[in-house]
């Protein structure tokens, strides 16, 4: 489970053409050799090269992934440049100093590689995945795209419709997530991952270049499926000037109640209290555990959500309403809370009960054990996926310290139920509502 919400863009993807012709299938010679023996993953290696932290894991598998992540997410925007990170993500892969958009696309496709850009609140990252033997021929494109983009004005304006499309296909959950951050943090962390509507088309080329110049100063380079020396070599070719100024401290402002009324049968409510930051990994893990103990959705399609603290808020296990926990930990603050989706006539009761639980929940050892099982599963599953591993290593290298999976799981085990209780003790609520707001109680009514 990612520690922070983010949005991903796949900039350039290779197209795989597969033809299932009977004759072709017959022509494939089946080799009688035994399959290559499984070689286990090697240990995590970290080092520092100039202004870049490098983390890499040699997975001994066929795919290599190389990523550059910068501490330049939406929290570093200003009031006048809101949404610039959204446009940066959209514009990943457009013309650079060394290659045109067309040339970049064709060259990356020729190598069978994928180039993507991921942007979060505190980071923006560019990743390239390719086969092991091709990665060294495409890493120059990664460097170009990450550091050397030119932002030609006509290319940027040609891609504004894509930003518009992304905004229009946001699911209600995503809009609620942006809203609860805005309610809790106002500016900085409160800025949305998506550009505001009034800013679309107003992100000029100079604004994008300026943001890059001012914020792409220190980076984390992550290499998965390559020797550490290769990642270090790549990092040493980047000329980052360093001197990243600290972001303005995130200030949690309780008591805000943001509502967006739409024509919807359902009401989506988010209630949150301030959570621990990533500066204390144990507390951040406790927050993630509180999230799981409060409630998680079903892992099975059309299944029932597992029993949790919020099940009592829902009453019987009713499939028409859902209440799950959520958590987000940033470098200097965080959020822990509850996400509710319910039809209008039930949302009042569910919201009141969930607010009570959020304010006064006490987790038993049994709750803790169950939550640990879920969190350990989430961490392990994310570690297994190539992109998930890259993102974990990169974000932790930027904001904290990357740990190998065994240490992550040990950290989860070391958290006690008392630590979990401390996360929720005496927090003041923030609220965001989306959809059918008619029956949702206001924050000052939730006493």
């Amino acid at each position, binding site marked *: 489970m990612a520690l922070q919400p983010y949005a991903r863009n796949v900039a350039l993807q290779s197209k795989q053409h597969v033809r299932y012709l009977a004759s072709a299938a017959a022509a494939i010679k089946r080799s009688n050799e035994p399959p290559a023996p499984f070689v286990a993953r090697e240990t995590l290696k970290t080092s520092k090269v100039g202004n870049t932290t490098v983390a890499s894991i040699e997975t001994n598998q066929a795919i290599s992934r190389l990523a550059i992540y910068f501490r330049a997410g939406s929290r570093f925007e200003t009031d006048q440049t809101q949404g610039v990170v959204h446009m940066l993500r959209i514009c990943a892969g457009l013309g650079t100093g060394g290659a045109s958009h*067309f*040339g970049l696309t064709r060259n990356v496709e020729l190598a069978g590689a994928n180039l993507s850009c991921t942007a979060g609140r505190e980071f923006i990252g560019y990743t390239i995945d390719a086969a092991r033997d091709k990665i060294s021929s495409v890493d120059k494109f990664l460097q170009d795209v990450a550091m050397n983009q030119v932002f030609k004005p006509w290319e940027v304006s040609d891609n504004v419709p894509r930003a518009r499309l992304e905004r229009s296909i946001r699911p209600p959950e995503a809009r609620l997530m942006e809203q609860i951050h805005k309610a809790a943090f106002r500016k900085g962390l409160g800025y949305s991952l998506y550009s505001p509507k009034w800013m679309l088309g107003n992100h000029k080329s100079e604004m994008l270049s300026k943001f890059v110049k001012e914020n792409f100063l220190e980076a984390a380079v992550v290499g998965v499926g390559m020797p550490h020396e290769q990642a270090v070599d790549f990092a040493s070719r980047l000329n980052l000037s360093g001197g990243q100024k600290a972001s303005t401290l995130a200030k949690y402002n309780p008591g805000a109640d943001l509502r967006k009324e739409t024509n919807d049968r359902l009401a989506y409510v988010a209630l949150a209290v301030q959570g621990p930051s990533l500066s204390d990994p144990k507390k951040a893990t406790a927050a993630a555990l509180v999230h799981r103990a409060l409630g998680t959705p079903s892992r099975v399609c059309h299944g029932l959500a597992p029993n949790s603290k919020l099940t009592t808020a829902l009453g019987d296990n009713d499939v028409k309403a859902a209440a799950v926990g959520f958590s987000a930990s940033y470098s200097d603050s965080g959020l822990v809370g509850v996400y509710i989706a319910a039809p209008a006539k039930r949302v009042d009761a569910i919201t009141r009960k969930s607010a009570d639980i959020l304010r006064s929940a006490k987790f038993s050892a049994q709750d803790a054990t169950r939550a640990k099982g879920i969190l350990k599963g989430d961490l392990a599953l994310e570690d297994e996926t190539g992109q998930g591993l890259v993102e974990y290593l990169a974000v932790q290298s930027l904001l904290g310290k990357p740990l190998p999976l065994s240490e992550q799981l040990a950290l989860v085990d070391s958290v006690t139920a008392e630590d979990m209780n401390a996360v929720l003790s005496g927090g003041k609520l923030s609220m965001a509502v989306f959809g059918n707001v008619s029956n949702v109680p206001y924050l000052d009514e939730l006493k």
Partner: protein
Amino acid sequence: MVKIHGHVSQLLGAIGVDILDKSGFNAIELKLNNRFIYALRRLPANVVDERNFRIIRAMQLSMQKIYLPKEEWLTFEQDDYYLKPYLEEVEREFKEREEWRKT
């Protein structure tokens, strides 16, 4: 004689030439794959405004059959190649596409 540009004609061969003749483009010497139009699109807004003004003023003067007063004539220094960098870039991009089409 009009040179046939563009992928349309190259794909369709002789038929493309026929369609092109019928569409009337070559009757007034316009090209389909016009690098000029691509480059014009990329001009910054202030250059576009100045260009439009000069065109409209020229049309007005032509209609009235008069000249500008001597002090408003364009000097040699002012007569700059404003479109040249953009044309060159468009040309390079077209060449790149041609290179990739061949391989």
